[in-house]
């Protein structure tokens, strides 16, 4: 094998490591007790699109919508409310995701286990990390083992074979692929387009860069950069065995600061662990200072501007408006499949948004009762407007559906000031968020049998 170094990424970003996902509890849930989806995180990955400036197309918005719809996956995922975007949050990864029996650590998942698609169960617990899809169009072949050249075929495989979904229509599959291919890397002013450090990087990173391109002492044909090619977004599109139990494709190091844990199975939590592995595996003889320099370099090239942003009303509205915009095309086209998917998916999103304004039963929030009720009322009316669109579509009354779509647009616009007024007492406020989830944790602790 031609030598290779998969210096698969590093360093848990502070905001990621501080995330405390609230687990699912009880014997009556579809997912095992203790599953964590991290949907409660206040910090969310930032998602930017290639086509953002020119306006996202119908196809990309439809793909984004389908990507966020549990209806695209099989029975178990649908009943658990899991969609593609549950794992790939805003097209990035999900380092806090954990399902007992399918994960060996937070951020990995065995997609060939017994839960989502029992016929595909290989009876081996071999979880893989959830990859970020930022810049995916540059990163083929697909799958950790790089088994699939076509992203389209790979996406279909995940939906149908791994998650037990129904065969998606060709148009829907095209849409999902168009969406994924539109997800852009985060900009990184510390790296040039050729993958070289800019003047913004410190001395340690520069020393690390020199080590990164330096030939290995026992095999001069090898270097870190031989596989993680700086000019090629730090990939070489090939698979290599670097002593991790098989041949896996070279992962990109672009924005990798946000992609922990590292290696195909997520065995390493930090860049330092990764560097130590390669030091051992290839007898590199790195000093502690060398390792620190390499970590500084990886951190510099793995960075991205605004990798995460605080969850906000604006972010929700942007997504909801993008999703709902497909109705402007689907209703006149009498496309009930898309109308129905939109009504269900956007309706579910709106219900979730409503729950960001705690109701009167939540004792953790004492102020803004009238404002919260008003925001909830407004959002619930939007949900019902969507349902009326769905009902009109089902009855093939597309004129009525279009009329209701206008009403929907008015209602969603009207809900904005109500939400803004209630924001200080909502889960978008860091203090309220903490109070609410601390109360949930206390209930959970109260429900824990005392240790004997």
């Amino acid at each position, binding site marked *: 094998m031609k030598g290779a170094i998969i210096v698969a990424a590093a360093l848990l970003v502070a905001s990621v490591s501080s995330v405390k996902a609230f687990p699912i509890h*009880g014997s009556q849930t579809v997912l095992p007790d203790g599953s964590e989806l991290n949907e409660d995180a206040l910090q969310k990955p930032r998602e930017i699109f290639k086509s953002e400036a020119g306006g996202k197309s119908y196809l990309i918005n439809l793909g984004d919508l389908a990507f966020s719809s549990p209806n695209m996956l099989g029975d178990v995922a649908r009943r658990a409310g899991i969609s593609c975007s549950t794992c790939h949050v805003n097209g990035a990864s999900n380092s806090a995701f954990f399902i007992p029996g399918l994960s060996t650590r937070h951020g990995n998942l065995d997609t060939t286990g017994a839960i989502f698609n029992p016929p595909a169960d290989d009876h081996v617990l071999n979880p893989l990390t959830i990859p970020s899809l930022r810049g995916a169009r540059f990163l083929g072949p697909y799958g950790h083992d790089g088994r699939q050249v076509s992203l389209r075929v790979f996406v279909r495989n995940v939906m149908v074979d791994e998650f037990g979904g129904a065969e998606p229509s060709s148009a829907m599959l095209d849409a999902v692929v168009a969406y994924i291919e539109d997800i852009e890397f985060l900009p990184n002013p510390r790296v040039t387009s050729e993958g070289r450090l800019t003047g913004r990087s410190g001395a340690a990173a520069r020393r690390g860069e020199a080590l990164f391109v330096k030939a290995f002492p026992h095999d001069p044909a090898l270097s870190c950069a031989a596989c993680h090619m700086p000019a090629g977004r730090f990939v070489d599109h090939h698979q290599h065995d670097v002593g991790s139990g098989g041949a896996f494709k070279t992962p990109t190091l672009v924005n990798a600061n946000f992609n922990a844990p590292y290696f195909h199975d997520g065995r390493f939590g930090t860049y330092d662990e990764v560097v130590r592995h390669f030091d051992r595996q290839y007898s590199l003889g790195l000093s502690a200072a060398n390792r620190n320099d390499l970590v500084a370099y990886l951190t510099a090239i793995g960075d991205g501007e605004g990798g995460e942003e605080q969850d906000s009303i604006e972010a929700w509205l942007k997504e909801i408006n993008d999703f709902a915009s497909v109705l402007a095309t689907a209703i006149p086209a009498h496309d009930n499949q898309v109308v129905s998917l939109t009504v269900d998916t956007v309706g579910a999103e709106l219900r979730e948004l409503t729950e960001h304004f705690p109701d009167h039963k*939540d004792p953790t929030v004492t102020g803004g009762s009238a404002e919260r009720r008003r925001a909830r*009322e407004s959002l619930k009316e939007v949900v*019902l407007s969507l349902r009326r669109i769905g*009902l009109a579509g089902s009855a093939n009354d597309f004129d009525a559906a279009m009329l209701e779509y206008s009403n929907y647009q008015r209602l969603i616009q009207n809900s904005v000031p109500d939400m803004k007024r209630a924001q200080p007492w909502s889960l978008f406020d860091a203090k309220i968020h903490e109070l609410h989830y601390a109360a949930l944790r206390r*209930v959970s602790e109260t*429900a824990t049998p005392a240790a004997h």
Partner: protein
Amino acid sequence: MSNCHALKKIALPWLTVLIALPIWPGGGNRLAHAEPVSSPTEQYRSYLIEQISQTLASTKRLRERAAANDVDGAKKAWIAARVGWEKAEVFISGFVSDLDEDIDAWPNALSGFHAIEARLFGANTADVAAATDQLIYHLTDLDIKIRQIPLNSQGLLNGAARLAYEVGESKADGGESRYSGTSLDDMRNNVSGIQLVYKTLFAGPLGASDPKLALSTEQTIQQLASLLSVTDAKSLEPGKVRTASEELIVALQAAAPKIGLRTPTLEDITQ
């Protein structure tokens, strides 16, 4: 006699009752309004009294069993207490939603049904005396209120719509009754409460003014009940439940003006 005349004959007394009732924003009629005992709202009140009495009696039994350190007996009493409470939620949602925080707060590890549930079912301990005493106090207050509070159709329509919306909420995280595993029972009892208020107060007048809508509303309630008749919460089809719950509210909204009421609000925005 034509069918139309027959319908009018049946409908008129209902419409008289409904139109005579003052309409208040959010449905909270604060007037002491004497209704004939045979009126639909008073019939509904007797049902409510029965439900809350059952809940109160079961909660007292829960206290007894807990005092005897009988965890299993206390669990049974807790589950029994929930039945009447959940069936009465149409009234709670429409008239005294503030009592929800005292009785059914979520998330709360200190007081209310779910604080007791976490200890009983999660920690498997009968150490629930303080929270149970508090709960009995609030339920006693509720028991008094439901005998005295003036009821009206608008408030009960609001309550039915609000509760229907709640039934459609995802229970993928286990729902509020996650430790006892009875979130599905909560939903069933909610729908049973909606069904009863609909039949008692609204089916008659709506059938008279718009039989087609009355039939489809009845069918949607039945469909919702049918979707909940699965063996356990894991088998629920949440998307279908949500759709049915929203279709029911859309139907109730369409029905409101046809029975002399305003479109139901989904939150008590008068508070």
